[in-house]
């Protein structure tokens, strides 16, 4: 008889939990009707000059370089707010690959719960679950050329080009930043706050746009100085990749304006 009761309690609690689970899911879906649309637009620069493939720039150390390729991963985008609970995000499984060669990749559109938000947060890189989870699709498709095949793992950022200061064949510069193993896990959360008084207000049916400025100069001139003449490339996970990634984390800043339409 006693075990019988136990059964009841277990069943009841599981049932309630599951039911509750389905309702909360439902709520999220119902809420979709109260959602506003948010576009997040990434634009690449070298300091204040818009980045264009084939054009020559100077980094903060007056080293000239030209870019052929610039790509990086962003995932798990979410908006956060001062009020506990008021946050909105997209599935942590969703990744985006920014590619300077593909203007369509500069923009991410998410649907967000109505509310007032203090800032935006995203993972710069790819989390270890997706690094070790086998064959992925979408932005993480290994076809995208952002996967190391002999030492498995995603390259979270690729900057390739040339510089007269590089001592590599063809004066190439090649920064492939990746690695998910501690202590050299390169992926990290970037958190950008809107200016006080300029919080992002999302209302249902409204379209908003947030502009994220991506300054490649920070790759060189960040927490650690990376000089092209000394370090023209990075091709493996490790301390150098980590150092460059820590620099790159600072590439991101919010453009002043939040556009609302």
């Amino acid at each position, binding site marked *: 008889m006693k075990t019988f009761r136990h059964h009841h309690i277990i*069943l*009841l609690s599981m049932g309630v939990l599951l039911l509750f689970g389905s309702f909360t899911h*439902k709520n999220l879906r119902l809420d979709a009707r109260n959602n506003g649309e948010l576009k997040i637009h990434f634009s690449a620069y070298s300091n204040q000059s818009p980045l264009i493939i084939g054009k020559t720039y100077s980094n903060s150390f007056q080293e000239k370089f030209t870019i052929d390729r610039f790509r990086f991963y962003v995932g798990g985008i979410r908006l956060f707010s001062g009020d506990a609970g008021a946050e909105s995000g997209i599935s942590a499984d969703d990744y985006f690959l920014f590619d300077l060669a593909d203007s369509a990749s500069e923009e991410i559109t998410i649907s967000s719960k109505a509310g007032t938000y203090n800032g935006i947060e995203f993972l710069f890189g790819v989390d270890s679950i997706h690094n070790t989870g086998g064959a992925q*699709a979408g932005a993480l498709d290994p076809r995208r050329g952002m996967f190391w095949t002999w*030492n498995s793992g995603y390259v979270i950022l690729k900057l390739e080009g040339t510089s007269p200061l590089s001592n590599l064949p063809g004066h190439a510069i090649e920064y492939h930043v990746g690695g998910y193993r501690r202590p050299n896990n390169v992926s990290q959360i970037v958190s950008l706050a809107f200016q006080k008084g300029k919080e992002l207000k999302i209302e249902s049916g409204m379209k908003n746009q947030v502009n994220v400025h991506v300054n490649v100069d920070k790759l060189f001139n960040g927490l650690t100085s990376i000089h092209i003449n000394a370090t023209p490339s990075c091709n493996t996970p490790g301390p150098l990749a980590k150092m460059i990634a820590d620099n790159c984390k600072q590439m991101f800043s919010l453009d002043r304006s939040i556009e609302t339409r």
Partner: protein
Amino acid sequence: MKILLVILFISSAWLQFSFLTKTKKEDRASLIGTPIRFVVPKGFPQPVYQFKNNTLTKEGFELGRFLFYDGKLSRDGNFPCASCHQQFAAFATFEHRLSHGYNNQFSYRNAPGLFNVAWEKELHWDGGINHIEIQPLAPITNPHEMAEDLDDIIRKLKKDSTYHKLFKAAYGDPGINSQRILRALAQFTASLVSANSKYDRVMRGEDSFSSYEQPGYQIFQQKCSSCHREPLFTDLSYRNTGISVDSALLDYGRMRITGNKTDSLKFKVPSLRNVFLTGPYGHDGRFPTISSMLDHYNSGVINSLTLDPLLKHGIPLSNDDKFYLIAFLGTLTDTSFVNDKRFSAPESVGEVK
């Protein structure tokens, strides 16, 4: 009351389920068809690869088998997976130190046999590959091996009506993408289970060791099984067995992956199952025979900072020891595995080419 609870439970579970099926769009990438049960051999631990999001099916496995034997996965059509992984050699390359690849080049390492791969957390001699599903990317994109890229492979497969049928049978629609290709290949490679050697039959009480094999087994347990641990005959660790570095290959093994000096010259302990079929031996195939490998343990071990402590004094082996050991290692050959038709080239692979 109880019935009510059960109904509540079932209906809410159904609600939950129906929600999940609606939202998880990528589930459409999963396999349809006839499920196959993956049987864990008696005495084996649970495999690392659990076919998560890649339910093992007859059709998925069959697609994987076609891909494994198809030259289209290589640039010039001559180097399917099976060109280096030959079934009669337990899916190693028969009698080759290094394997032939694209444009008269050689692979960097000796091709290991492929069996019980589902139990390996990390693949390749240096453990650089972290998942069985993405392993094929390494040989496919390696310019010395298959020298191909995924876009090209997808393009070639899309033109082939056989694959139209095979992908449709496996996934419900004929769409081809890298994830489907890789998961199907994993269905095949993970299914290569070898656990029916004489050794296994003895362990199951169906057979007994000969008077040579029995002492060989005892020596093995004393001197070898701390690394070549039963029942997989590897503990999957990385060890330096006192092998010198090849001056042309400059292969420092595990250090290439971790960047740690302490991993210099460490290689993954290979399984010794089917070892009679997988020669030559060692990560670069430098040992032509098993007895030359045993001579190494007996008298060839080179001391260095990262040498495995178990081998500080080598492994003294008398001629008798070697004789018995080799007799025992012969019991690890699994003829039913190398003759298993399920793993052989599909009849129509010629057509597919």
